[in-house]
């Protein structure tokens, strides 16, 4: 058994190297820290975690709505409530995300090798907007109907409408409940891993610079 383990843990093993890299870049005491710098004491730091919390509620309510089907949120009071929970969770998600973004901007959170973390955050913001947009198109109410008619011109004018047809409920609904949420979730996990791997950025040095 020991001999077999030694063979499988040779430096030539891809698995062994991957484990070494993970151990080096993201050890458990970085992923789940029990200590943090004393200056992490502002409410600004809360905006990140409450954004994640709102996303969890968006996904949970969305999974229930998806399971029950598109008619349910119009025809039953429970469905209507879940639809409301989804709607308001999305609103909270965006409020917290924007506050988090502005907070990180004024903290110059991209310093000391964190530029990619910032850039991924901006991509999350963009993909989230697209996800919410397809959600508004999937509501099956008057708002979604007119948004589709109105927004088609922007999509068509930019050539996007040839592939992304906002008048096609099936396409918008499929993107909204499957591909785009997977994209947002993957990017958020990546963003969190990058934050945990680097740790919280230090305060701006009065004499220093804020370059990456």
């Amino acid at each position, binding site marked *: 058994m020991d001999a077999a383990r030694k063979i499988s843990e040779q430096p030539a093993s891809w698995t062994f190297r991957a484990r070494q890299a993970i151990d080096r870049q993201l050890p458990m005491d970085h992923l789940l820290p029990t*200590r943090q710098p004393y200056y992490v004491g502002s409410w600004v730091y809360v905006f990140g975690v409450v954004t994640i*919390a709102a996303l969890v509620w968006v996904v949970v309510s969305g999974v229930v709505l998806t399971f029950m089907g598109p008619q349910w949120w119009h025809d039953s009071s429970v469905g209507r409530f879940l639809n409301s929970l989804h709607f308001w969770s999305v609103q909270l998600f965006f409020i917290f995300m924007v506050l988090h973004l502005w907070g990180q901007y004024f903290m110059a959170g991209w310093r000391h090798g964190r530029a990619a973390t910032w850039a991924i955050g901006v991509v999350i913001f963009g993909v989230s907007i697209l996800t919410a947009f397809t959600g508004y198109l999937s509501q099956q109410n*008057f708002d979604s109907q007119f948004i589709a008619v109105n927004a088609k011109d*922007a999509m*068509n004018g930019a*050539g996007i409408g040839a592939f992304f047809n906002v008048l096609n409920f099936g396409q918008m609904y499929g993107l909204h409940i499957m591909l785009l949420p997977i994209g947002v979730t993957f990017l958020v996990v990546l963003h969190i891993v990058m934050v945990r791997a680097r740790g919280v950025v230090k305060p701006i040095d009065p004499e220093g610079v804020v370059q*990456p």
Partner: protein
Amino acid sequence: MKAMGATQEEYYRGVRMVPYDLIKELVLALAGVGILAVAVSAILSSPDVAPVTIAAWAQADPVDFVTTATGELAGSTTTAGYGNPYNTNSSGQAWGPIAPQQWFGTRIPIDTANTFVIEPLQRAVTGSPDLGTGLDAWQKANSDQRGKWTDAYTGALANATVKDGKVTVPDGDYGPLPVMMSNLLGIAQTGGLDGLLMVNGRFYQTDYTPALLFMGDGSYLSGQAEQWNLLGDQWGMMNETGRYPGQTWLWLYTMWYQVPPFTSDTGFFGLNSSNADLGIIILMTLLTVALALVPLIPILRDIPRWVPIHRLIWRRYYSPHARRTAG
């Protein structure tokens, strides 16, 4: 100070560390946000204004419905002259050599006369000899004759009267149009056209493109939208029906539609109201890329150092007492 490439241990060397419970913070955040979301949902509910149907349109404003349908036959509606991806009747939006609307071609072909009027009537022709004769006359007529009929009928619709949901126009030479339009109106008022515009030769369908384009060509849908402040010049893309918040995060995108050069006929640097959609999408793409690249852009990346908001956020760090004890 250690920067890029440093391990956390090196990066935080000399910094006073305090106890922290990440899992507890996450659980409390989940609970707090959940309670807030449930409370707001229970108190305020969510928007669910019923969508407009073609039947409702045909019943509420039969003259607008018939005028729109006649326009689809004449090729004078927005969709008829749209260009790609629906047809080639317009060159579409372009900014100099940038013309993506042309590049990708007619991927969602819509012939407004056939899709919105002729084909639905052909499917409904059974049991109506007059309609069959009328459709036959329309098909056999040349384009000049059709144009004369649609011009005359469109002009007459300005003086149309409505009685019991039926549209009557002054006498004139309209060819088969009165019988075609009265049948189409009747089908629409019973809800039949809502279904006929979804027919695709297969049982299942989820694509509402023809029905929404047809409704968008009329003035009834936009009239309803105006009441809810959903039109483009009302910042409509970020609004919602009722008092509910819409996609407020689209405020910057929506703002460009309210200001020059995107509201101007003459415009600036080739950008104007006729290619506003393309110009605004390009502009927002560039701004989004710039936001992602802020760490690399001088001045933008320096503003946080100049604006002392960070001193409020890290006031514990900047207090003389903390610096002494941390050192």
